[in-house]
């Protein structure tokens, strides 16, 4: 009763305005209150509203279709009666009675169209079948629902119109509803509270009809339908539509971004004319793997190079420091390698190079000698004692490499490291005599 009184205050306030048609708004607010409470006795004079009230009390027994029709009946009555009155009276009626509705904001103008269907039974069915022409399967399915809903809309409206003896005014009210935003929002808001109190099923059906309308507007259908579950009962339809719109836009933007990236990816992958995403991604994965392998192999080749072409050593600056400490340099070389994928390459480089330089500790200044050595190795291979000392080592190391080349990648990697460590340990002892031998003839 308090709620009624609350509404009554608003109504009383509105009654101060000069026009008569407020009676309808007075009757209206108790009905709303009764609908919200779902069973409180409301002193309603209007037989239709009273019937509605009884129906509310029998909510459990009555099936959803009945309820739905009932609800619709009321809304149609609101339309036919209220709006037809609104046609004539002045604006103050509208402005004063609007605050009596507890629900907030105006629905977007889009909603106007969908609501205009309520009082136009036949056009609704027609428009719903128009939706059929939209291309996605979901839209057609939804439109089936819409036609069903439209049929349900149609009968009560006609019935209400005949029972209320206002068949003549009903079309005009429909036109006013679609033409003037304020009456339509009014009836929309009034129609909302019973919906909130009732089961979700009729509400769902109505939503589908609205979603259908949206898809008619060219909206993305999928996200809209997706939203059906998410909405809480109490939230107003405007909030929901706005959220759905935002969701739609963000979803579409996201999809656009992904498609754009897909296209960029497709350009990067050679010989890729696959249409669908899955094979595109598959191709990308394969191509990425092959590229990684290629880079690994090439860097391996480059890392191997310094052994044969010492001029390359300038790319690896820190190896010079390792020369004086033959056993340590391995980790140093790994870390300091400029090669990006250095897992394999440096293994070959230092592994082959260090044995050759193992005797370098004998030489007082390793770095200059190495530069000298590198510059000479290009031109002549037989001038200095260093070169001579290197030469006998080279074939000895090349042979195992030749064998390794045939082996699979991992084997190669593993055995190479083994060979390099064993060979690096060996030369220090055996090479001492050799270099002294080389030096003596010179």
């Amino acid at each position: 009763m308090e709620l009624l009184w609350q509404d009554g205050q608003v109504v009383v306030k509105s009654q101060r305005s000069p026009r008569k048609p407020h009676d309808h708004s007075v009757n209206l607010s108790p009905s709303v209150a009764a609908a919200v409470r779902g069973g409180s006795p409301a002193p309603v004079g209007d037989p239709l509203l009273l019937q509605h009230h009884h129906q509310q009390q029998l909510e459990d027994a009555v099936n959803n279709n009945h309820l739905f029709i009932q609800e619709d009946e009321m809304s149609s009555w609101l339309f036919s009666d209220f709006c037809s009155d609104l046609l004539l009276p002045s604006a103050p009626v509208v402005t004063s009675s609007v605050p009596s509705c507890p629900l907030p904001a105006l629905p977007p103008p889009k909603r106007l169209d969908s609501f205009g269907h309520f009082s136009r039974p036949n056009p609704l069915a027609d428009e719903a079948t128009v939706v059929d022409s939209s291309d996605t399967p979901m839209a057609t399915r939804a439109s089936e629902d819409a036609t069903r809903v439209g049929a349900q809309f149609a009968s009560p409206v006609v019935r209400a119109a005949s029972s209320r003896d206002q068949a003549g005014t009903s079309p005009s009210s429909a036109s006013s509803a679609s033409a003037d935003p304020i009456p339509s929002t009014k009836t929309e808001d009034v129609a909302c509270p019973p919906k909130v109190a009732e089961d979700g099923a009729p509400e769902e059906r109505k939503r589908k009809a609205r979603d259908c309308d949206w898809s008619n507007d060219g909206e993305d259908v999928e996200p809209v339908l997706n939203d059906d579950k998410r909405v809480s009962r109490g939230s107003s339809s405007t909030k929901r539509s706005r959220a759905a719109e935002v969701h739609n836009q963000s979803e579409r933007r996201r999809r656009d971004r992904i498609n754009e990236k897909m296209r960029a990816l497709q350009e990067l992958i050679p010989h890729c004319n696959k249409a669908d995403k899955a094979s595109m991604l598959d191709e990308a994965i394969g191509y990425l793997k092959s590229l990684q392998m290629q880079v690994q192999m090439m860097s391996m080749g480059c890392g191997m190079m310094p052994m044969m072409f010492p001029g390359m050593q300038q790319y690896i600056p820190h190896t010079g420091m390792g020369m004086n400490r033959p056993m340590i340099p391995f980790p140093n070389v790994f870390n300091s390698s400029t090669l990006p994928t250095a897992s394999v390459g440096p293994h070959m480089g230092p592994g082959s190079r260090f044995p050759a330089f193992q005797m370098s500790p004998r030489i007082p200044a390793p770095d200059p000698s190495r530069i000298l050595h590198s510059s000479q190795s290009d031109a002549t291979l037989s001038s200095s004692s260093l070169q001579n000392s290197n030469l006998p080592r080279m074939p000895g190391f090349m042979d195992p490499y030749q064998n390794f080349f045939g082996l699979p990648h991992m084997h190669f990697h593993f055995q190479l490291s083994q060979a390099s460590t064993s060979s690096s340990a060996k030369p220090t002892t055996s090479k001492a005599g050799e270099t002294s031998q080389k030096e003596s003839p010179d």
Partner: protein
Amino acid sequence: MSSRRSRSRQSAGSGITDDQIAELVTRLQQLLPEIRSRCSDKVSASKVLQETCNYIRSLHREVDDLSERLSELLATSDNAQAAIIRSLLTQ
């Protein structure tokens, strides 16, 4: 319920499911050092694709760079060594 059904029906028409796409994106993600090194598990698909593009470009650059260096080396080094490297690269 209805939306899910319709969606699955639609994707079944094109022959792929969303799960497959997601799985492929995950596999792609694992190949990317940039995203893999980042600890956050949840990366958007567009981010993965963007990183894939970047990574492929960087790999292309790397390959170009390395091939340049290798060809340089092959040109200056003697035949036996060049043959070794060639056999390695064509492996």
